[in-house]
């Protein structure tokens, strides 16, 4: 279906975020009914009921009641629960709409602001407005590339290494998935160097893939190459440590 989510610009999002920071109360139902958003023309607008459903489903996924004031949650739990349910919650959101910063600015500022606060109490702009580090956008991106199961098993700093190097790595599903799979495999073996491994490996893979035509490779060859580079990184880190 040619459905349009609602958009607000980052300018508006920043202004509204500032109002909340200055103490304005947040009321999602009133926000849904308020004008001052944009729709993609040539499309069927998302309904108010559907927006309420999205909010309800986020609350359900996070296992918190409607009136959750005072509840706290670990960052890991927040991300994991949302990651596992993200595709269901936003089942009608297309890649096209998900790529629009305004979509996430609307969802976060008008609909889920209080819920995002559970994850990022510091109000940092980039977690609320339409930026790739937005509370919900980052989860959507991880799920859409890695799938919910694998994405939920990655730790935050590991995921950041994959998804904030989008040039080759995050945008190529085979590369991103192999990095994540190998990461989990190495972690399983109980390696203590794990925390810096992803950072080193992501740089290494990126360097390697700029000089060869990975589009020309068989999928299995590309997977082997990424895996090989990750294990080389691991060896290098161990060597450095032993010196």
């Amino acid at each position: 279906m040619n459905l349009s989510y609602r958009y607000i610009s980052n300018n508006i999002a920043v202004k509204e975020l500032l109002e909340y920071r200055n103490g304005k109360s947040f009321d999602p139902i009133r926000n849904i009914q308020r004008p001052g958003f944009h729709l993609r023309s040539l499309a069927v607008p998302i309904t108010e009921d559907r927006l309420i459903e999205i909010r309800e489903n986020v609350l359900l996924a996070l296992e918190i009641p409607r009136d959750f004031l005072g509840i706290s949650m670990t960052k890991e739990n927040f991300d994991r629960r949302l990651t596992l349910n993200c595709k269901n919650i936003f089942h009608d959101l297309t890649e096209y709409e998900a790529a629009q910063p305004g979509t996430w600015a609307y969802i976060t500022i008008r609909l889920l602001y209080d819920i995002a606060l559970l994850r990022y109490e510091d109000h940092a702009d980039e977690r609320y407005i339409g930026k790739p580090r937005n509370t919900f956008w980052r989860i959507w991106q991880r799920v859409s590339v890695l799938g919910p199961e694998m994405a939920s098993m990655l730790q935050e700093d590991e995921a950041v290494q994959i998804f904030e190097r989008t040039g080759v790595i995050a945008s190529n599903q085979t590369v991103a998935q192999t990095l994540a799979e190998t990461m989990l495999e190495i972690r399983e073996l109980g390696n203590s160097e794990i925390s810096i491994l992803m950072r080193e490996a992501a740089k290494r893979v990126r360097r390697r893939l700029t000089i060869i035509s990975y589009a020309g490779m068989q999928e299995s060859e590309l997977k082997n190459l990424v895996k090989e580079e990750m294990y080389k990184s691991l060896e290098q880190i161990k060597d450095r440590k032993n010196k």
Partner: protein
Amino acid sequence: MKTFSYGYNTLAEKAVRIHKVFFNSRDVSNEIEITSDIQASALWLPSQETTIKFEIEVDEQALQTQLTKQDGDAFFVVLRSNCRGTKKQKSSLPQPLTIVNELELVFNPFEVSDAIDFYIEIFSNFEDDQDRPFGAPVRKYSILFSKKITAHLTGIESRVNVLTKNFENIPGIKAAMWNITLNLPQEIDEWSQLQQSEVVTIEINNKIDSKVINSPEFITLLITDLIYTSLSKFMVDDDRLTLLQDSEIDSESWLIFVRQFYNALFAGYPDPKQIWDEESSRIRSEIQSKIAPSTRKKLDFLLQESIGVI
């Protein structure tokens, strides 16, 4: 024996020419300028499956003389894409390089937005563990040639607010066909950061038949009015004009939209304001003339999908 690489020979930029471009089997080579930037907005709808095909021609002599190869080496060509908006990559199956190659990718509905970067890559393949001649690549799949082409899509354009409205009780515009409102902040420093959809609202009189609204003539006049009205906001003083003239200013979709037409109309003129004041009727006609062909093409797509403009 271990082979060390001191770099290898590659094909020169001019050795590969994009001969033809097809959108959904239609040869559009004569409708667009085939450069590293293709304006594809008029050829694309996000909700439609789109196939893009490039026909490339390789200079045979360059192929023989510029690359170093040995027996058993084979050259292949592949097309890959990276969508700037959705950050998704695709690639075609590699095919053996010949003098003329056709490379094609299919994009599903809503799979891409904003712009797609295409890369035409020629690479070599050979048996591993061979001694390699000086000037030939040592690693399999080494890129021998790469060309980037960006197709700009319609994401920005499609987010203008278009509404139908009863004009009956609005004094002064009762019989008007449309009413364009530009919502611009007082502070012009903010203009560069505005999205098209924040600024532009087009209200269309609901008395007008939808067949008329969906005609290329109606849309051409409407868009001409929008562009003219938008440009007029900048022709007031030099500060505003600088926003259009200085392409280094970091800009959002509203300014990009207006700047695109400013450049098309006034590039090279020393005093655009004077021309604006003295030749306004010619400028209107020139805008019409520039947008009419793309409007017609865009409308063909919209009507094919039975969507229409509103």
